[in-house]
């Protein structure tokens, strides 16, 4: 049984995704929708981290229940920096790069949930399957958001 490895990896990748969303949010404080929605949906990953930590106990894992969260000072600095360059066009390119990064991270998390769900079914662990069924749709929504936002922003950034 390597189920604990799947849980551990997912715990790591969800935590990473939450951090990536929050960092992107801070970097684009002047792009208000990115700033707020990235924070709203980072909560989903943070919630997944807590749930994975809890269920990990059943598999002998001692995973940190607290997601990495806001890095405090760094967050403030990033927000200030984004406001300082808010009148310049360059952050547009950076935003496309950030959205691309989030999409890739979320795609990885999505595959990790697939792996976990497959394993849970094979090992007949209904509570683990239930967790995957509960959380995975939110990962897909995070992906779709990054994709949709990228699509809506790309033209203006690239042709102007």
């Amino acid at each position, binding site marked *: 049984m390597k189920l604990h490895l799947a849980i551990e990896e997912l715990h790591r990748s969800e935590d990473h995704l939450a951090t990536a969303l929050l960092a992107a949010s801070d970097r684009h404080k*002047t*792009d*208000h*929708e990115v700033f*707020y*929605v990235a*924070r*709203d*949906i980072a*909560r989903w990953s943070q919630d997944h981290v807590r749930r994975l930590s809890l269920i990990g106990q059943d598999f002998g894992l001692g995973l940190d229940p607290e997601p990495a969260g806001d890095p405090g000072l760094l967050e403030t600095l990033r927000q200030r920096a984004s406001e300082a360059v*808010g*009148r*310049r*066009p360059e*952050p*547009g390119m950076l935003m496309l790069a950030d959205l691309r990064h989030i999409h890739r991270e979320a795609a990885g998390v999505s595959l990790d949930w697939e792996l976990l769900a497959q394993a849970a079914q094979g090992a007949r662990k209904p509570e683990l399957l239930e967790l995957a069924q509960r959380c995975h749709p939110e990962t897909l*929504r*995070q992906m*779709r*958001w990054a*994709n*949709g*936002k990228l*699509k*809506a922003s*790309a*033209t*203006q*950034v690239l*042709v*102007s």
Partner: protein
Amino acid sequence: MPDIDRIAEPWGTRTPYGPGETWPTRVDSHLAEGLTEADVDRWVQSATILHSNGDGLDIAVKDGEIVGVRGRAEDRVNHGRLGPKDLFGWQANKSPDRLTKPLIRRDGELVETDWDTAMDAVAGRAKELLAEQGPSAISFYTTGQLFLEEYYTLGLIAHGGIGTNHVDGNTRLCTATAAAALKESFGSDGQPGSYTDIDHADVIALFGHNMAETQTVLWTRILDRLAGPNPPQVICVDPRETPVARAATLHLAPRPGTNVMLMNALLHEVIANGWVDEEYVQAHAVGFAELEKRVADYPPELAAEICDVPVGQIREAARILGTAQRLMSSVLQGFYQSHQASAAATQVNNLHIIRGMLGKPGCGLLQMNGQPTAQNTRECGADGDLPAFRNWSNEQHVKDLAAVWNLDPMQIPHYSPPTHAMQMFRYAEEGSIRFMWVQATNPAVSLPELGRIREVLAQERLFLVVQDIFLSETAQLADVVLPAATWGEKTGTFTNVDRTVHLSDKAVEPPGEARPDLDIFIDFSRRMDLRDKDGQPLVKWDDPEGAFEGWKECTRGRPCDYTGMSYDKLRGGSGIQWPCNDEHPDGTERIYVDGQFWAAPDYCESYGRDLVTGAPLSPVEYRAMNPTGKAVLKAVEYLPPHEVPSQEFPFQLITGRTLYHFHTRTKTARAPQLQKAAPEVWVELSAGDAADRGWAEGDLLEVSTPRGRVAARLRISGIRPGVAFLPFHYGYWDEPAGHQPDGERGRAANELTITDWDPVSKQPLFKAAAARVERLAEGDGRPSAAPTTTASRPVTDGVPPTRGGPDAHSTEQFATVLGGAR
């Protein structure tokens, strides 16, 4: 004829009626001092323009001037009635400070010029930017106050001619969520309800909708039902003690920002108690299982805590809604401009779907509009959508539109959702939009976080064109100002929230060189030499009727089908409801009869969006979810608000309107009766909050957020504790500094508001800020200038009541003797 002070009595005299009866006629009129109907040379047909209700009226003309108005008895919308803004607002037309000549900026100053110079400057800059950067540099920010013909022409020029995706209206601030919620649930914009549903309903629920002040005549209809036999029960959801709240059977005053929590709890109770029309849901909706699962997590006890509403009230509201025989609902800014706007409004649709309360008399659902012609901004594509509710992500719809316009489909931008207003200002801020043409709206007062907006508009690198009837705050920042004609000075049509189309005929000449907006657009198109794919002029009409005929073709077979209408048919008689075509030559009172929707994948206007992230669904996803075009039940989780009260900013700040003003007061402040009724800004707090701090009515307070400061006198009202309210009408055009605060404190509520918008509808959230309130000075015994007839009614003694006096006297003419047989 009875004479009444319509400032003191905004809703006039009651004409009670019972369920299923016809609303009695009452013809309201007001003429200039000293005139009677015998003095009027002629009456010219039109409809009301200072709110969204669409009341039919006739304009009185004497010696080539507008001298008054009279409601149209035969109109289905108002049966003769008019509101205070309609009775007095027309006086603004002949205000001495109307713009009468184009202005152009020379050496930093706006100076008078001629039309050729002004339009050459506009077209010249547009051509330069098209050559240098392309259509992504050009944007149009329009309004909810032009006419259908003008929006359609503008949409054609912007989308089809220039090829820009940057087109929106200020309807983004008022009705974007109405459209979004309808698209989410029914696949297309278009209001399921009809005003006549008030005549039949046994329960009327108003969600964040202070109808008494926003649509006074519609509220009059409800008041007349309430005064008659077997009155409906009324449910009001609003943090303020509005006139609606005072008339309601049940008033819920949730904490701002918690509407989704409340709605989910109401749906929870309706489902848990078996008040679902299961047969209807089975036959006509998708998504019930997911909705049931989602709202299971929202018991009333949880909502009671989060919303701070007694649990018994939530249960009682759910019981009334769940057992209604004929439920009518209406939704407005309390939902649309609050946190999770579209998500909350969509849950009201869900309520009607699961209760099967659609398409039958009394079972109306209105996602309300705020402005008179907002529906047309949306229909005609001036809000960025494609005209006639075509779907920008449906290739066939784009091809079809290209055929109507005789263009290559590639010419019409449809690669991504249209750029909404807030995003346009962001693009202008970062410098990629370099040309903005603002029409009949005043972003320098009406958009959130005004310090930022003024900086964006004042940029040297932004070429700003403002087309208006007065030198507004925004116009003062323009490079070119174009003087426009307004209502009564030009001909066109417009459509209200219950799909009623009215013709508004020209009554008088515009002042000076002012020109109809349609003429200005066509002039621009000619100067730009915009052409179709055969080299013919892109805009194929040169008058309103020609534009209307063009529009009719564009709507053929679409939900908002106008093909059965004509100017002749709209003249005389009542307004007509779309769809109106060969099949329904007299229009259509109710849509969605028998659970038939416009939601089929090949027909719908939108595939919908994720209610949390706003990400659009793909055609494939939508087809899988809703293959046969049923109503869509969309579930959503509650999210905590983005800006929450803190020790430093302990109040929740909400903004809104008052009955006597419209928008930024450009017209209503120039009508003496209206201006006198609400002459200056005030701030409302609850009695408890005032007492805790030892503050009294009339004290001068400062309201501040991290974004700005506003000074206003205190009105102690029936508002929810912990919440502060500021009216948003007051800007600076009638103050010394002209377009910005004179000193460190302003009076525009939007100095304080937060830049945040609903990810689905992109509507800015004006009711979502946290604020600090401090006293600057004790009052001198004088109360604040807030009206006493409205939601700002004082709860303390000693405030003199709002009165209009002799100047505000209007007549009411009754068709039947009051109290007699009906």
